[in-house]
């Protein structure tokens, strides 16, 4: 009995520091955020309750609507492009060809480059007047483009930049998953006369299902929270073409000091991410199979 009691005490003592910190800096803010979204709060004067007014205002806010549209557009481009490209790169890198370590390092290094540094580099690469990208386009006979200064192209620039930054992470995950595929399965398929493409489609790809699911979910969550790269390149412009949800939230909270309104945006984003993740897992039940 004494032993049992000491287990309760020591158990709680072990988790106490982590629990107190997570309560103070996670659980309390989560609850507080919900209350904030029901307030008018400018971060300075004392807040007052407004009920669901922030959410009602959001539903009529054209800029918010635009930001949702931009965020969805970005996510629908970024997630498939980065994952399909990474899969191709990982498969190509999975055999010991010459210069393999050089290739791998080239693909992985952007993982260590921060989002801010990436943005600064791409501002220069995509500079409409002196940028290297326009030089390359001119060399192959395409006229210079405006990139981040052109409302029709800015989002594609953001996609290209973030794919560059993310591919390394995805490739690392896929390479680890590829290593886990038993060689016998691939050999068996080859003996049965399956072409390489058939082997890839019917053996490799299904076995990569769990890794793909993880990357789809993780990339989607990150894409929906895009901020750093926008803040350090287009600042939501030109003409609102790259104003994504989290950038708009930041503007509302820390530039217009509408903290209650921003908290409502955060909760809408939270619910959206939750719903999308649940849908992705539901779809995966039918399409992703786990082998042990």
């Amino acid at each position, binding site marked *: 009995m004494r032993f049992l009691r000491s287990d309760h005490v020591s158990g709680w003592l072990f988790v106490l520091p*982590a629990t107190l910190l997570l309560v103070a800096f996670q659980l309390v803010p989560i609850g507080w955020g919900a209350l904030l979204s029901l307030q008018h709060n400018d971060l300075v004067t004392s807040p007052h309750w407004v009920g669901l007014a922030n959410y009602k205002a959001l539903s009529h806010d054209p800029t918010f609507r635009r930001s949702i549209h931009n965020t969805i557009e970005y996510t629908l481009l970024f997630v498939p492009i980065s994952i399909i490209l990474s899969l191709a790169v990982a498969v190509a890198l999975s055999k010991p060809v010459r210069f393999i370590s050089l290739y791998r390092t080239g693909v992985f290094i952007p993982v*260590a480059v921060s989002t801010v*540094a990436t943005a600064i580099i791409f501002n220069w690469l995509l500079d409409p*007047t002196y940028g290297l990208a326009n030089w390359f386009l001119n060399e192959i006979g395409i006229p210079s483009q405006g990139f981040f200064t052109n409302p029709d192209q800015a989002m594609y620039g953001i996609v290209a930049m973030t794919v560059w930054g993310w591919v390394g*992470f995805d490739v690392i995950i896929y390479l680890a998953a590829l290593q886990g595929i038993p060689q016998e399965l691939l050999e068996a398929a080859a003996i049965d006369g399956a072409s390489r493409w058939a082997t890839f489609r019917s053996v490799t790809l299904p076995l990569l299902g769990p890794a793909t699911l993880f990357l789809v979910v993780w990339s989607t969550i990150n894409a929906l929270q895009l901020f750093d790269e926008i803040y350090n390149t287009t600042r939501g412009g030109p003409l609102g073409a790259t104003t994504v949800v989290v950038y708009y939230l930041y503007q509302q909270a820390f530039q217009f000091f509408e903290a209650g309104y921003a908290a409502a945006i955060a909760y809408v984003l939270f619910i959206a991410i939750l719903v999308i993740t649940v849908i992705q897992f539901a779809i995966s039940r039918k399409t992703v199979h786990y082998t042990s």
Partner: protein
Amino acid sequence: MRYLPFSARHLFLAPLALLMATPLIWMLITSIEKPDEARHFPPVLIPSGIDWHNYTAAVDSVPFGAWYLNSVIVCAVVVLSNLVFCSLAAYAFARIHFFGSNLLFIVLLATLMVPFQVILIPTFLIVRHLGLIDSLGALIAPNLVNAFGIFMLRQFFRTLPVELEEAARIDGCSRLGVLVKIVLPLSAPALSTLALIMLLWTWNDFLWPLVAINTQSHMTLQVGLSTFQGMHQTQWTILMAGNVLGLAPMVIAFILAQRSFVRSIAASGLKG
């Protein structure tokens, strides 16, 4: 390693690796060009000489030294405290049956589902109330522990053979003694994974330091770089030199310890 004979893969991999490296190579080249060489189209691909002035101009215009130091301090404290607090909690969740452990574990884990933007403004208000805004404390306090670390270490601890720990307990070793003397020495791979992941996250964190810090000398490297860009809008040579200084520490660390980084990312990704 035995290489395969020439493979068609090179036709895909070589241009790809070049494409991936181009932004960084072009940054390095621009950083040693003269300003009028960078303000030229078509671009000057091979500079006439090496001009280090861009680096001295970058270092003179902003407190890079303070930014490095701030980032190093924040990362060191956050990584160490995570190792300590996450180990303690993870061990209890893995091995000790205590009242409410399952519920508490689920509640703490659930915080991982909540995007940071939800807690951004309340955390700002809490940290301001604590008087920590615009100090390194603002960057450290909210990140001292992370539910992901608790989860990851708990999963790892559960794979260790429990017999060793039971033997030590029978010999009169305390719970803390078992954790420190037996469990942690066996957990080097998991601990280094957590440390590297936390290092990458903390080093590259941007939104929270942007909100929490205003004074230039209190900034971390990432917020500093962002400010630096604002000061030198189109002075591309100085901007690229500063950017080289900004990304160099983590890129060099990554190249030197590529295997550890890659293994950590793979491990955290597959388990997370």
